[in-house]
């Protein structure tokens, strides 16, 4: 979790959704957050996530991993648009995403995709609707496969196991690799790539499915700032075009750029709403033990978390601000 050094010496325990932030705040924030490509679309019309029909819905969802109940009666509705799922470590974010992708047995409750229970979908049909990106772990396999061959696997739901890739399939692969700027590594083994390069290949793999629903677990992990921005701008475009994008993000700065933020805590949805919603901001602060405040970025419609300074960090003389 990134800590944002702040020069503010008087951290208030309450969120500050004030329309006129103090000058000192605006200084620290303009340093910490400048995401021109992520600026939201015009604020006036209702965001698509509020009007469109639900795509994925969970009712009383209970998921157990071993003896642990990770999701405990979770209710949520996901509509077209970009939803960022946030929450403390162990809140069940990744588990929920896997359950949404139909990869986990459901102990109770239901997950529906387009109104139909997820389990009723034929695997291949479901795979064309839902693209899932795993959280990248260090010992992920596929090290001996070429990056391009890995992205090509995304077309399996379209071609079937033995079908050849058509020109359209190859075009989808090329487009996805171009979008994540992974084209240059096409002919290299996955195991030879750096973490960020690997992530871009795996992202391209998820995007190349061309599914209307994207379930991405920490898609910005290992990416440098420009690629994080480019990725999220691309996701936002897809969402604006009607896709349902669900991202688990531990980086609140990035999460607050989403159309909607969904706070997961204790295996349930703690709060949900657009980033501007004061109730959501309060819930965020509570969930993270008041270790942060959320403030508006002046001259921009975005909001950003401001981490309450740690004593140890305060002791450092003139900590350099982290630039994004």
């Amino acid at each position: 979790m990134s800590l944002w050094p702040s020069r503010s010496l008087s951290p208030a325990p309450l969120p500050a959704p004030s329309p006129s932030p103090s000058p000192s705040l605006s200084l620290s924030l303009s340093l910490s957050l400048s995401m021109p490509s992520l600026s939201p679309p015009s604020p006036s019309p209702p965001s698509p996530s509020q009007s469109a029909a639900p795509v994925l819905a969970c009712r009383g969802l209970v998921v157990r991993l071993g003896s642990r109940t990770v999701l405990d009666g979770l209710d949520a509705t996901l509509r077209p648009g970009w939803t960022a799922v946030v929450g403390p470590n162990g809140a069940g974010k990744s588990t929920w995403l896997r359950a949404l992708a139909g990869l986990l047995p459901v102990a109770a409750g239901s997950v529906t995709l387009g109104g139909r229970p997820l389990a009723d979908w034929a695997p291949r049909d479901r795979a064309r609707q839902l693209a899932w990106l795993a959280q990248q772990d260090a010992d992920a396999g596929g090290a001996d496969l070429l990056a391009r061959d890995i992205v090509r696997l995304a077309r399996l739901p379209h071609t079937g196991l033995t079908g050849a890739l058509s020109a359209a399939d190859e075009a989808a692969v090329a487009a996805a690799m171009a979008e994540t700027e992974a084209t240059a590594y096409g002919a290299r083994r996955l195991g030879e790539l750096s973490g960020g390069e690997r992530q871009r290949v795996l992202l391209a793999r998820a995007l190349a499915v061309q599914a209307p629903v994207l379930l991405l677990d920490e898609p910005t992990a290992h990416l440098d700032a420009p690629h994080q921005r480019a990725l999220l701008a691309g996701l936002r475009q897809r969402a604006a075009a009607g896709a349902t994008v669900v991202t688990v993000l531990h980086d609140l700065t990035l999460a607050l750029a989403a159309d909607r933020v969904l706070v997961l805590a204790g295996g349930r949805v703690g709060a949900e709403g657009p980033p501007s919603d004061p109730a959501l901001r309060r819930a965020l602060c509570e969930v993270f033990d008041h270790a942060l405040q959320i403030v508006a970025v002046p001259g921009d419609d975005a909001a950003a978390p401001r981490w309450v300074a740690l004593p140890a960090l305060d002791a450092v003389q003139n900590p350099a601000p982290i630039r994004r």
Partner: protein
Amino acid sequence: MNTLAAAAAPRAMSPQRRLGIALLVGTALLWLAGLLAGSDGWTLSPWQALAALADPGHDWHLVVAQIRAPRTLGAWAVGALLGLAGALAQGLFRNPLADPYLLGSAAGASLAVVLVLALGTVLGAGAAAGTGIGLGSGNGVGPARDLLAAADQVGVVGAAFIGALVGIALTLMLARGAAQTLRLLLAGVVVGVMLTAVSDLVTTAVPQALRGRQSFMLGNTALLGWGSVGWLVAGLALALPLAWRLARVLDALALGEDSARSLGLPLAQLRLALVALLALATGLAVSQAGLIAFVGLVAPHLVRRCVAVTHGTLLVASAAAGGALLLAADVAARSLLAPQELPVGVLTAVLGGGYLLWLLQRRRAGA
């Protein structure tokens, strides 16, 4: 090969094509060498050998056409099946150290061989002779003779094949299907240990079976005849195209189980199909030539070092590399200490172990 080839002509030929040509040429040369090498060393010229193969009136026809040719083809086919099985196992378990015997096939086949040999001894078979390691026709009486006749009909080869399949079936039962890799792997270990213990028990009771068991476990290509070749080639012709069709499952599996399932693959069924192919390839190879070590482990490694390919190509190339490896070992086993013959399993173990050691040293050196 990597660096050498890359230095030679980077634009002329893709690494895949280069490996393909190397394997084809190497295999052709090894087939020829297989006709030339005998227990008397290298006495024939290539032309003489080919002439002897083609001409039934040739002095050497019997040796070349009825002994060396089937042995050569058979050794190659056994190696190819093991190479294929090794690539399947490594893909299936997402582990480059997996080998074809992992699922209890080796222990199952050994036990079956031991049981047949012990049965033959106990039921009063005289001199053992016959297929493979050998089993006599019965001189017992009554039901004993019937039993023995049945065992004889199945023979050591059939018993080993069935034993290998039973071993894998037991593993699948213990693991409750092929849905979970780790459970499958552990069940394979359990079956291996248990069946080996039973084999030990039987050989303790019937020490006469010990020799046969040992020669089975060492592996032997010397007794492969045209009959064996027929079975082996038929098995290869069946397993290889099927494996090719299922190869993309292994590609997807490399990304992780969840990723593979998120791509709409019914993994439990597909894994079962892959295990069945693995069982067929391993069972056939083991039944004809015993437990040849390391070929299944090393062949896919060699291929992966040379080229980065998807599993379709990897499976085919591993089969080709496995065939070439075992045939090379077989030729060496025949001729290194002629007229003495080395057990080919010892040679493959030395070669395979040496290769892995070299790999380890390179890794340590930071290559």
